[in-house]
């Protein structure tokens, strides 16, 4: 039982020493950003991977966490260390509300995907139009570098903070997968009717899953706000994060503990490499090429690696182990 947490410890240890090998701010920024996406994807994976409910609108939760984090500081003067958990709770509440509306209406499959997408768009338009959120100009968190203000002189410190959250996400996912809730969630994914026959309250299970899922993604949004200290509606509630939170687990391995992390690192690494390579070849940045690569990866994964890179890895290991 304890051994199942060992891979998590090793992975986190490896990620923790990465900043020691570089002093490049670009690299550290990239790594922090990749881990924030990984965390958002861990949230998506609870609902989408374990629960089988594909949300196309996790931006609604990411954005609520991000705006919550920024506005609690800017408008209410709340300390970021308190604002972060509050923003997480706000995201979870939004998730619970959207879940209650859509799961009670028995939406699933494409319809659930569509309704989450629409909710995210509503939030984006509102945030863009409302003065309280800074409207189209966005919201700026004042720069005040102090540990008590969750702003650090050394970029590695913030990276470690994000990593701690990712590690907590890994442990939480692993604990959930082994607990009764995880078993029931997977049962609902596989066959809702059969699960109900076994005493599983499928609505309650799905609601818990979306609440947990949206809370984790909102935490990622809060960290994003604190990392970049600037938000607008297109960043916080934009479709980019809905897409990346969904792609990472699918590419890494749907419904697995490490899938979102592996997927996010591979996805963003490849995206970055494509941008750099094409930028060199064409003499300037080309917007969108990284996302073209993401789209191709998504289709390739669905077609050839339904269990993601981790599943592919397991297959390769099995082939190698097979006696010749």
């Amino acid at each position, binding site marked *: 039982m304890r051994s199942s947490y060992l891979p998590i410890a090793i992975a986190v240890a490896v990620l923790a020493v990465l900043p020691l090998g570089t002093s490049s701010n670009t690299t550290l920024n990239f790594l922090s950003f990749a881990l924030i996406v990984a965390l958002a994807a861990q949230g998506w994976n609870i609902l989408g991977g374990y629960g089988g409910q594909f949300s196309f609108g996790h931006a609604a939760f990411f954005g609520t966490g991000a705006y919550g984090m920024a506005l609690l500081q800017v408008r209410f003067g709340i300390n970021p260390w308190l604002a972060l958990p509050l923003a997480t709770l706000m995201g979870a509440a939004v998730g619970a509300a959207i879940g209650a509306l859509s799961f009670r209406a028995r939406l699933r*499959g*494409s*319809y659930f995907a569509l*309704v989450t997408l629409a909710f995210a768009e509503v939030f984006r338009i509102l945030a863009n139009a409302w003065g309280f959120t800074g409207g189209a100009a966005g919201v700026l968190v004042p720069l005040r570098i102090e540990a008590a203000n969750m702003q650090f002189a050394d970029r590695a410190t913030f990276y470690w903070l994000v990593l701690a959250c990712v590690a907590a996400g890994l442990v939480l996912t692993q604990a959930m997968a082994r607990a009764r809730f995880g078993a029931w969630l997977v049962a609902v994914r596989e066959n809702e009717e059969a699960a109900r026959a076994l005493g599983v309250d499928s609505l309650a299970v799905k609601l818990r899953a979306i609440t947990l899922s949206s809370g984790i993604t909102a935490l990622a949004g809060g960290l994003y706000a604190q990392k970049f200290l600037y938000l607008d509606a297109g960043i916080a509630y934009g479709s980019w994060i809905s897409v990346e939170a969904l792609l990472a687990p699918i590419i890494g391995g749907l419904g697995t503990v490490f899938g979102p992390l592996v997927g996010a690192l591979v996805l963003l690494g490849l995206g970055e490499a494509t941008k750099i390579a094409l930028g060199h070849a064409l003499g300037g940045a080309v917007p*969108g090429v990284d996302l*073209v690569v993401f789209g*191709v990866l998504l*289709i390739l994964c669905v077609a050839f690696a*339904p269990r993601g890179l981790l599943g592919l890895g397991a297959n390769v290991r099995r082939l190698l182990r097979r006696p010749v």
Partner: protein
Amino acid sequence: MLPLDIFLSAMANGLMMGAVYALVALGLTLVYGVLHIINFAHGATLTAAMYAVYVAHAALGVDPYLALPGLAAIFFALGYMVQRWVIGPASHGDDSNILLVTLGLSIIMENALLAGFRSDTRSIDVPYGFSVVEVGNLFLSTPKLVAFAGSFVVAALLWLLLARTDTGRAIRAVAKEKTGAALVGVRVEHIYAVTFGLGAACLAVAACLLMPTFLVNPRIGNAFVLVAFTIVVLGGMGSIPGALIGGLFVGVVESLSGLYLGESLGQIGIFLIFILVLLARPTGLFGARA
């Protein structure tokens, strides 16, 4: 202008825009009715079609209305090939896979267009772009009227195709009972691809009708795609008259809420209707599936 005239003008504009929405929704509802899937790449395909019209005009000097038959044929062929050789094989017949594959296609198309054309908004200049027809106190844009009429013509043609031709009969057979259709010799994969091609051709027509008065940027399809989804859900999945009436209704709602709530909040009306319709009518939706 009198308040009543402003209202009537907003109504008329809403109806004309709504007809184009209906055309976009027709493609979506047709694909849904036959393949029972929601094509998430629909919006990006529309964007691609609009860029095709733009390029035809800007680089080759072809008028959008003249480009219509050619582009419709090209998009039919592209839609056919994508369904036959990409979506079909990649999704292994699983609904949530189709959802993901079409999402992937939409990401690829949208961002390839972004890479190719950058995020600038572009439009084309045609001599009749600003010509109007005077009806009472209202001045109606001629190209929008053409788009209005054109949408109904396409809907009528589509209906004739489904009702009167062998291909149409095969499409309806596959929509109702694909196993049965396969047993009597209908090539289901072929019919799926034809349906997908027809959906894409509808978008090419919509693009040709839109471009004289509209602009294009890589994300423009998103604006249409949720509107089209709303229409399809409102009008009933798979229903052609439903798409037409739903399209006109949504066009009017958008135009009026834009008038009374302002441009940016006006869009919200669409999404709220969409969410409400989805939440309130789930049994109707699944009824269409069963």
